[in-house]
């Protein structure tokens, strides 16, 4: 099986007062058609910068190296017209805040048909017909009427479903969902998760879901990349990663979650805070917060390599591998 998206050695450097600093540092990942892949990590871990780099939407002054090939086309090298042709048509994005993603004074119909007509070259009436179908797919009641309505007339959950419909309008092959349910209620979140899951089954759309919520990750993603301070900490199948994590950071993220079975036991937070961009520690970036850190952790920057003892592909950037005995 060939990969739909192949990101290799992606490095995004952002200007800070102390010079350029890597917000994403040497990240490689692959996504296959119809597959949901997750990127997990706290704020500042480089999740969102990774996503934005695929769309050429990085902040002004950012330096990008490496490659991100979608079917052989390097998205990072595209500029101008070719980039516009890819955006929306091949890759589309759903952001965290549906209110900001939709134009407040254009009707849903206009927003849904705009790039459908641009990319697919269909007539206005055909586009409107397809738009109504899409709204039905994302379970918006009375699609015909919704097409004539404005974003403000819908609730947050419905707006996010509309934003997903807009992203899907030109039938992209890769959907990047950046914290798609963080702002929503659990009940609405469940609906969005089911929708995303259905889409990638029925349409063979590949999805990259970016979230710090490992519950969402568990429900949706088949494989997870865990990032910390711009670097890959661990990557592997969700079922392994969430039951037998090998990286102390993954373990820490899991322990910080309220556990469905543990009653009243205090939560176990990861001590300290994630480093800011200008102050990423040397060696393993996680070592100051790591309970298992040894002397070599502060000295050498670990590379993600195949974890020993794992059957499938499982990358781990933790040479001491203290959790191996447990695994």
């Amino acid at each position, binding site marked *: 099986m060939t990969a739909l998206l192949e990101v290799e050695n992606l490095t995004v450097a952002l200007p800070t007062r102390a010079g350029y600093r890597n917000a994403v540092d040497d990240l490689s990942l692959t996504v296959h058609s119809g597959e949901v892949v997750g990127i997990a990590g*706290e*704020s500042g871990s480089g999740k969102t910068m990774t996503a934005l780099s695929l769309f050429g939407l990085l902040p002004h002054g950012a330096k990008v190296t490496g490659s991100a090939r979608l079917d052989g086309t390097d998205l990072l090298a595209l500029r101008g017209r070719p980039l516009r042709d890819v955006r929306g048509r091949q890759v589309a994005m759903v952001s965290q805040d549906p209110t900001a993603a939709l134009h407040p004074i254009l009707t849903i119909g206009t927003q849904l048909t705009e790039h459908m007509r641009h990319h697919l070259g269909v007539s206005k009436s055909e586009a409107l017909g397809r738009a109504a179908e899409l709204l039905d797919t994302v*379970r918006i009641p009375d699609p015909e009427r919704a097409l004539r309505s404005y974003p403000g007339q819908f*609730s*947050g*959950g*419905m707006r996010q479903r509309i934003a997903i419909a807009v992203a899907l309008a030109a039938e992209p092959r890769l959907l990047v969902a950046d914290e798609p349910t963080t702002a929503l*209620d*659990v*009940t*609405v*979140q*469940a*609906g969005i*998760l*089911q929708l995303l*899951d259905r889409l990638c089954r029925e349409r063979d759309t590949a999805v990259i879901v970016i979230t*710090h*919520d*490992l*519950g*969402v*990750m*568990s*429900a*949706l993603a*088949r494989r997870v990349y865990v990032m910390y301070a711009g670097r890959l900490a661990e990557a592997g199948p*969700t*079922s*392994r*990663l*969430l*039951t037998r994590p090998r990286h102390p950071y993954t373990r*820490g*993220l*899991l322990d*910080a*979650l*309220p*556990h*469905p*079975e*543990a*009653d*009243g*036991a*205090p*939560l*176990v*937070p*990861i001590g300290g*805070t*994630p480093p800011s961009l200008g102050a990423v520690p040397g060696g393993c970036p996680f070592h100051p917060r790591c309970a298992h850190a040894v002397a070599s952790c502060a000295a050498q920057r670990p590379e993600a390599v195949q974890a020993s003892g794992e059957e499938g592909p499982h990358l781990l950037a933790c040479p001491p591998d203290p959790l191996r005995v447990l695994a």
Partner: protein
Amino acid sequence: MTAPPENPVPDNPVPDNPVLALTGAAVEYRRRGQRVRALDGVDLTVARGEIVGLVGESGCGKSTLARAAVGLVPLAAGTVTFDGQPVTPLGMRRRAGRLRGLQMVFQDPYESLNPRRKIGALIGDGMLLGGGSRATARSRAVELLERVGLPATAADGYPHEFSGGQRQRIAIARTLAAGPSCLIADEPISALDASAQAQIANLLTTLVREERIGLLLVSHDLSVVRQVADRVAVMYLGRIVETGDTATVWSGPAHPYTEALVAAIPRADGAGVLPADLPGDVPDPASPPSGCRFHPRCPVARDDCAVTEQRLIALPGIPVPGPAPGSAHAAACHVRVPQAGSGDTAPSGAGPSAADGAAPASSRPAVPGADALCGSSTRTSSTC
């Protein structure tokens, strides 16, 4: 799993006089000349040293309740008392000094801290209002910063120098400056990162236990409420539809709405199971559905649900060791919690409704250890 006997009530004795009490509280807003009841006849108590979780979807009135409890919005009916005294709505005048012990922690620490004032000054204000001098305010601010796990040097910093979790600690330290006996926290951890969430949840729990502060924790995140709250109240469209001991409500939710909320939580177990969906949205409170307000979305609704108003009925069969009446498990659903002949044999009736046999779950009162039931009901709902 959770068995009912391990009810954590004993180590947390609930005194008879709650520090905060809402009785029949109702709040109305005006919208285009129309009256909208955002909060409708809510009874709720919080005792010192107790954490009460308030959960529900957005638009169900949680935040309105929190704001009414501290007097930020006036009541249309009912009362709110703090330490036995009525909480008067905030007007043009200075807030009454006797209410200083009732404090609020807001959701977004990026908005709630004045960006142009130093942390020490932000916290010191609480002391100055209480009649302290600047010198004592300063030393107490440092003390409080250390209490919430920040270095003393933080007092000389500005809010932007701190991360979200640290800012929320500062906001909590600021409320502590007033020497509160009751805190209302409206989504205090939703804006934070996963590890910061755990830190703040633990900090609040520790403060509540050690300083004997009552805490009303408003959150849409049930798993956090479940972890820290002693009691939980579930709201839907301005009303409380279920209340009870957290472990009991979690392991055996009686109201279909609570059940749907619990089933919708994705679990980080790597099993790849999609959480169960609850279709529909919270209706517009300007025109609430007739009868049970949840009936249009309810999977177990019957015809009469659309006409019969529901009120909280205590669940029989579940032992209630807590001394306060508020610790009883109660739900407002006549399908799941039948009123058992309107009071004849209500409290003790063994298997009061097995004959009624409406749904498998209606046999719940006869089986206190609702584990099996909970498991089966979650399973059925997640397969649809």
